[in-house]
């Protein structure tokens, strides 16, 4: 693949950083502050979108890779940015959804008259800086650096309410994420460096960076390193280190939406899959028989989290466990190690992002309009808030995997991937989880539209949340449908990854 040097990825990152600084400086004037957030978001998306023609594979684009070396730390360890098809999937999605989230959080935070909105917006921009940094990393060190930046910068967002519950959730959050990063990823990274003398990602998903000599001599060690990476990037929500995610739901809903459905958790799965494909590589994983054990291991998370989600009445908690479950689809797909399986896993990064942000946006809109958090209290609300619940219904269908919404594309590829790999067990797990998804999503919409309000409650005066909230959530829902009907745009990138 042809490589070119361009400053664009750095510019995209600096825009987010500068946005954060400008937000802090203009804290006294809310309108100007929000304007800065918006300008930063739209500029960042613009810069990232301008790289699409360079990256998109021929004949639609040039099919090149962008590299930008920044700092050299040690021989084989550097801070280097890379933009390839895989990075673009994540970067485009994250930066686009940031624009929606800026509008949405302005409506949400003002609607609830939240405190410390300046800090909130500044940290939001910093979190995006970290997330896109992860997407644009060319080596394990750069990725680890941005991964940790995301952890630090989202702490203030999770602790936003500064009450006991907020501090407790934030503490859990930072303890889980730092312990796993420092205790598992760091030693794994150092050992990979000791074994190979480099931390750079491979050029394609097949070869990995371990020579066959290393794999023959230290197969067991390489397997251990793989396990460390799989569990160490705990933002991926794989059990047993998933508990930070439900805990972090104490954060304001825009945070849950963007960060815990898109940026933070996607940083986790993106890092995990990047390492699986570009550090270990399909060939190494096949040679060491790592694929299927991983697939079955994350299957446990898929099923278990769905079962827990069934038991949750708090809407955000149910969505949180749904996230835990859905994230593992991505890892499962990649672990199948067949082209279709990997494609299904990767495209779910985008599909899940659009659908899950819709669901969280809806949860926030319901809260702002009615101050209700529990599903049992939402019976009959659909008639008062038709747009919100329609969007919720669309996104639920996507989560379930029904056509013609985005999630169906994922399911289709995953099922095909499982068949290609000859794994009937995985097929059964996918079908079982689909049923569970129906079980915990369908009642929400059904009761909202067809249920009766709880006894003694009258929904007079309840209307849709402000437009700044409803419009973004509708856009996200519509995009879920668009991807479902026309997945080719994103599939171009996905196919370029697998090629």
């Amino acid at each position: 693949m042809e490589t070119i040097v361009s400053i664009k990825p750095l510019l995209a990152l600096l825009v987010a950083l500068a946005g954060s600084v400008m937000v802090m400086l203009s804290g006294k004037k809310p309108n100007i502050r929000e304007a800065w957030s918006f300008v930063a978001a739209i500029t960042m998306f613009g810069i990232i979108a301008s790289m699409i023609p360079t990256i998109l594979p021929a004949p639609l684009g040039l099919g090149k890779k962008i590299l930008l070396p920044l700092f050299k730390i040690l021989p084989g360890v550097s801070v280097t940015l890379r933009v390839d098809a895989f990075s673009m999937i994540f970067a485009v999605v994250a930066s686009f959804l940031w624009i929606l989230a800026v509008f949405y959080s302005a409506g949400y935070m003002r609607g609830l008259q939240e405190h410390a909105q300046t800090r909130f917006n500044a940290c939001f921009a910093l979190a995006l800086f970290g997330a896109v940094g992860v997407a644009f990393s060319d080596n394990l060190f750069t990725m680890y650096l941005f991964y940790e930046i995301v952890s630090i910068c989202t702490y203030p967002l999770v602790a936003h309410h500064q009450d006991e519950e907020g501090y407790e959730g934030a503490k859990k959050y930072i303890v889980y994420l730092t312990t796993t990063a420092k205790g598992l990823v760091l030693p794994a990274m150092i050992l990979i460096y000791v074994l190979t003398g480099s931390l750079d990602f491979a050029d394609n998903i097949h070869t990995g960076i371990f020579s066959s000599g290393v794999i023959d001599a230290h197969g067991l060690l390489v397997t251990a390193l793989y396990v460390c990476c799989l569990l160490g990037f705990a933002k991926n929500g794989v059990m047993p280190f998933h508990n930070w995610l439900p805990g972090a739901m104490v954060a304001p809903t825009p945070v849950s939406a963007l960060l815990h459905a898109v940026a933070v958790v996607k940083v986790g799965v993106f890092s995990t899959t990047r390492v699986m494909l570009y550090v270990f590589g399909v060939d190494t994983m096949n040679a060491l028989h790592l694929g299927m054990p991983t697939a079955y291991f994350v299957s446990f998370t898929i099923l278990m989290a769905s079962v827990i989600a069934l038991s949750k009445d708090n809407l955000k908690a149910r969505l949180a466990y749904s996230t835990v479950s859905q994230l593992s689809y991505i890892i499962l797909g990649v672990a199948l190690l067949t082209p279709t399986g990997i494609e299904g896993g990767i495209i779910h990064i985008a599909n899940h992002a659009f659908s899950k942000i819709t669901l969280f946006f809806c949860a926030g809109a319901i809260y702002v309009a009615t101050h209700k958090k529990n599903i049992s209290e939402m019976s009959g609300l659909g008639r008062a808030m038709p747009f919100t619940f329609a969007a919720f219904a669309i996104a639920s269908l996507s989560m379930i995997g029904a056509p013609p919404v985005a999630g169906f594309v994922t399911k289709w590829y995953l099922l095909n991937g499982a068949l290609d790999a000859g794994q009937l067990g995985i097929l059964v797990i996918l079908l079982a989880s689909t049923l569970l998804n129906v079980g915990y999503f369908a009642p929400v919409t059904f009761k909202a539209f067809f249920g009766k309000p709880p006894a003694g409650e009258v929904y007079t005066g309840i209307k849709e949340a402000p437009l700044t909230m409803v419009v973004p959530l509708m856009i996200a829902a519509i995009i879920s449908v668009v991807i479902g009907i026309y997945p080719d745009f994103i599939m171009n990138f996905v196919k370029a990854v697998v090629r």
Partner: protein
Amino acid sequence: MDFLVLNNGFPYLSALIFLPLVGALLLLAMPGENACRNWTLIVTVGTALLSLPLYQHFDATTHLYQFGEHHVWIPGLNINYTLGIDGISLLLVLLTTLLMPLCVLGSWRYIEKRVKEFMFCLLLMETSMLGVFMALDLVLFYVFWEAMLIPMYLLIAVWGGPRKMYASIKFFLYTLAGSVLLLVAIIALYLNTNPHTFSIPQLMGQGFSPAFQTWVFLAFFLAFAIKVPMFPFHTWLPAAHVEAPTAGSVILASVLLKMGTYGFLRFCLPITPAATMTFMPYILWLSVAGILYGGFTALAQQDMKKLIAYSSVGHMGFVTLGIFILNSRGIEGAILQMINHGITTGALFFCVGMVYERTHSRELARHAGLGKYMPVYVTFLAFFSLSSLAFPGTNSFVGEFLVLAGSFSKSMVVTVCAVPGAILAAAYMFRMLQRIVWGAPQNPDHTGMLDLNTREIVTLAPLLFFVLWIGLSPEPFLRVLHVSVNHLLTQVGTLPPSGPMAVAKLMIP
């Protein structure tokens, strides 16, 4: 003098050593407190500027001692005035000259009584610390080593906190015990060479008998292990740190602790290599014990200075681990980590001193929730805390990475046991940071707390600059180490690994 590149031009090293001393003598003539402060600042900044040519003219391609000076001192006993620096001492010299002006700035308002005497002690400290790093003759080394003891004792005993007498005497006794053993080892070495010599480079590679090496090693080791301080010889450290004034804590943590590890590198490894190999496994485990003990104890502290003091025990554990791994990555990482610890922990002590000046308390709980009132302060504190927990992109990460990389190729088990130390570092630093920046739902009233003034920002900014510089581009600092470290490894007899695969082979038993 085949080990020395003699310096025929301007005697930089002597000038560096004696400039603060001359400054101290002239200080006695200064009228008024402010004149004393300004004068000391000028002298220390002058010394710092004078040390810059050392880096500029340093030849990184030779292991020989550079900028050498050699004068006969006491011919009858073959005692000479020999100075010289190599890659190992260069950075420590520069660290010392960098920190001293900052110490003066950090004590500007903190020290209100006996300002002249305080500044006098600071300048005496600078002379003797630089002397320790430059001396190549054991007697000269010992003179400087002991000369540090009195001014440091005074810094704690005169300008210290409420329990200053206890802390200063404990410090004095511990260090003195180490010094006596050091003196015994020096005399034993002198008597065992033919012709008798005190020259440090000439004592290297003498091939002393294993039994003799063992005794000398143990004497050296105890002296330096107390200074580092290695677990279990660390108990003087928290007491001394807590009671010392800010500048005292900074000098103690940033420079004095490094003398222990410098001693390992300069004496134990090259003079007694056989004994080093014998004791290596025990020292590795002792280092791991220090890393874990320091981490757990720091996690339990309510006093900010104590927390940082115990974190030093953990960090210095990583340094000794790196040194006794005896490969180039480990030792280079250890030396870099010595510099990093000097910068970061020094900065953290400055930070504690700055709130102490405002509230006269070091309690974590007393300062909960400062973030809202002192945003500039907590920004600095956050960066230094992140550096202390080896956040990627900061200086400590590079050092820790190298130490652990070296350690993994030596022993899997030891390294895996050391890794929790990195988690603990994150735990206690985040705990401190969380308390100070956020606190709890109910925080003490901080109205009227002033954020940092220009002088305080000027004190911290250079340190932050180095945190990020070493973190993102450590090559200028590592460059000067390679040849000296490889030479050291040749002296010990563990040749540097030839490539990644060679390392890997060593790793799996």
